[in-house]
């Protein structure tokens, strides 16, 4: 039991990693990017391509893929989201959904229906583990993912509170018009935020590929995980996302022990329960579910 809880917590690190980009983008631009999961899978495929064809280790490959993801994020904001956000709150949903369909099917066209994994390219790391007291075995990779998530969330937090660019992003997320009045370039702030979000997505995609398998249509599931973790974690701080990810993973672990097919059901049900409680107790609901209060975050 203890063993499963620890595995669940470590898995939560992965969910926090994929969720933080989603809620970050939402709190800055008020857009839920439905292509979020597909972009993570895109990154995984890019690393797979580098590893299988050019024999570049996925960790080294990140040096190529992450900057690429940043460019994608910047372009995404400048050419798609910025334009569609002008048409109201509904259009970006449709735009990013269209983008997700294109990405998924282009990947399918290029790579076929086979499931892939980055595990063969990271040596013993995919199965090596440490023994903890009480004969609990924890995978080295799972620990690395968890630590990365913590470092990334902390780094993002520091960036938002301590740097001027971070402060201008926060100002834009509070009120883009007023921020513009005091000299913040809102378009630049948003494009930067999108670029940062895509770097986290790229990283999440890499870990998705290392710890599990993926196929061209895996993006939808990853999007749902990210959304669920972000909502469960709630509108606290970036650390809330980590807690949300851990709770989602624990619910899935619990679901899997109840029923062989209960892994995903457990996660969805936990999400709905949390949603229910939050909608009916805090009255906060509307529009605020994903919002990170980056300003007062500890």
């Amino acid at each position: 039991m203890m063993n499963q809880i620890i595995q669940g917590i470590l898995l939560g690190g992965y969910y926090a990693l994929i969720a933080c980009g989603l809620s970050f983008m939402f709190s800055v631009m008020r857009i839920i990017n439905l292509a979020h999961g597909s972009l993570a899978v895109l990154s995984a495929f890019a690393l797979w391509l580098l590893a299988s064809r050019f024999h570049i280790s996925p960790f080294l490959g990140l040096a190529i893929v992450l900057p690429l993801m940043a460019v994608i994020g910047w372009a995404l904001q400048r050419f798609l989201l910025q334009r569609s956000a002008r048409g109201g709150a509904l259009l970006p949903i449709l735009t990013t959904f269209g983008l997700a369909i294109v990405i998924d099917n282009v990947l399918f066209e290029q790579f076929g229906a086979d499931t892939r994994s980055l595990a063969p390219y990271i040596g013993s790391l995919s199965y090596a583990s440490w023994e903890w007291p009480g004969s609990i075995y924890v995978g080295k990779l799972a620990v690395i993912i968890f630590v990365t998530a913590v470092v990334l969330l902390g780094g993002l937090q520091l960036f938002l509170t301590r740097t001027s660019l971070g402060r201008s992003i926060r100002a834009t997320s509070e009120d883009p018009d007023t921020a513009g009045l005091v000299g913040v370039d809102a378009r630049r702030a948003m494009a930067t935020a999108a670029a940062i979000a895509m770097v986290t997505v790229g990283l999440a995609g890499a870990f998705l590929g290392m710890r599990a398998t993926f196929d061209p249509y895996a993006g939808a599931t990853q999007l749902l995980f990210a959304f669920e973790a972000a909502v469960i974690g709630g509108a606290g701080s970036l650390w809330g996302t980590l807690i949300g990810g851990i709770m989602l993973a624990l619910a899935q672990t619990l679901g899997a022990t109840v029923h062989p097919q209960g892994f995903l059901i457990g996660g969805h049900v936990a999400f709905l329960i949390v949603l229910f409680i939050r909608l009916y107790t805090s009255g906060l609901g509307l529009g605020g579910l994903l919002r990170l209060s980056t300003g007062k975050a500890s």
Partner: protein
Amino acid sequence: MSAASPVIERGTAASRIAGVGVLAIIVLLAVAPQFLSAGAVDRMTALFIYVILAAMWNALAGFGGLVSVGQQVFFGLGAYFAIRLANAGLNPFVSLFVSAVVVVAVSWPISLFMLRLKNGEFAIGMWVIAALTHLLVNLDRLIQGETGTSLISLNVYDASARRLTIYWLALASMTALLATLFGLLRGSTGAAIRAIRDNEDAAASVGVRVTGTKRLLFVLAAFGIGVAGALWLATSITFQPKTYFSVQWTAYMIFMVLVGGIGTFEGAILGALIFFLIETWFGGTGVWYLIGLGATALVFSLFLPRGLWGTVEERFGWRLLSVGYRVRLPAVGAADPATDTIASARTTTHREKA
């Protein structure tokens, strides 16, 4: 200017002709199977189902401002409950429609919950509901997980009689659902619906029952899509949860409505027709067809967000199936510099600002 008061119309000459035209088309479609091959009858049935899907998604998104990417949940449930009811001994054709009523019963509690979410949160929240429902349906022994099952009791009917019955049922469902939606949009609820679409807060402030109206649209869309799912089951007989609960159905709905014209009654029908033709011509190209659909939806949302019909309507002031009001200002002297503004104001005023 004050001498003549503006005339408020509910339609144009074109829309009155169109009304007659629609009746003629329905009559023609009703007798069409006499002249069509079996394959063509099946394709037409598919077209009717697409029209239902587009109109229902448009009712929800275009008029209710509720963009959902989880509408496949009602499509899948419509088929699933039909299987369950037929398995319990109900006549398979009857069960198609009883199933949709059960879908309504399920959609009501979902609406209590989901309508509290907004925009993207609602969109993806519905997706979670769809994913969860898919998993739960898989647990049903009768369905045998992803293997699926069939609407076996339909096999007792002779193939050609079955094909014709389903064709007429689909035609009747489509007509009834479109008529219901049309009546709803033209009535006082329609005014409330469009007020919500244009500005929810302002609508609430003048006493429009926002949540109640949205719930009505949500439940209507659930019913319509449930009927569509059940009819699709009737045409294809087999039920595989993966096919019916696929997000692809929502992608089709979005494509049809975006291309046709979101928030216009005629646009959804036009979109369904275009989708039907594209599918007929390019459906065989597999993945490229899907890439094309996604890319088209993307381009339309960026550059032509009002779709083909919305654009045409705006440019030429056409109305075929008019659900709104139209304010016609009496002619003012041609020298009046304000004429241009009035003319442009006219096109904006009659844009369904009920």
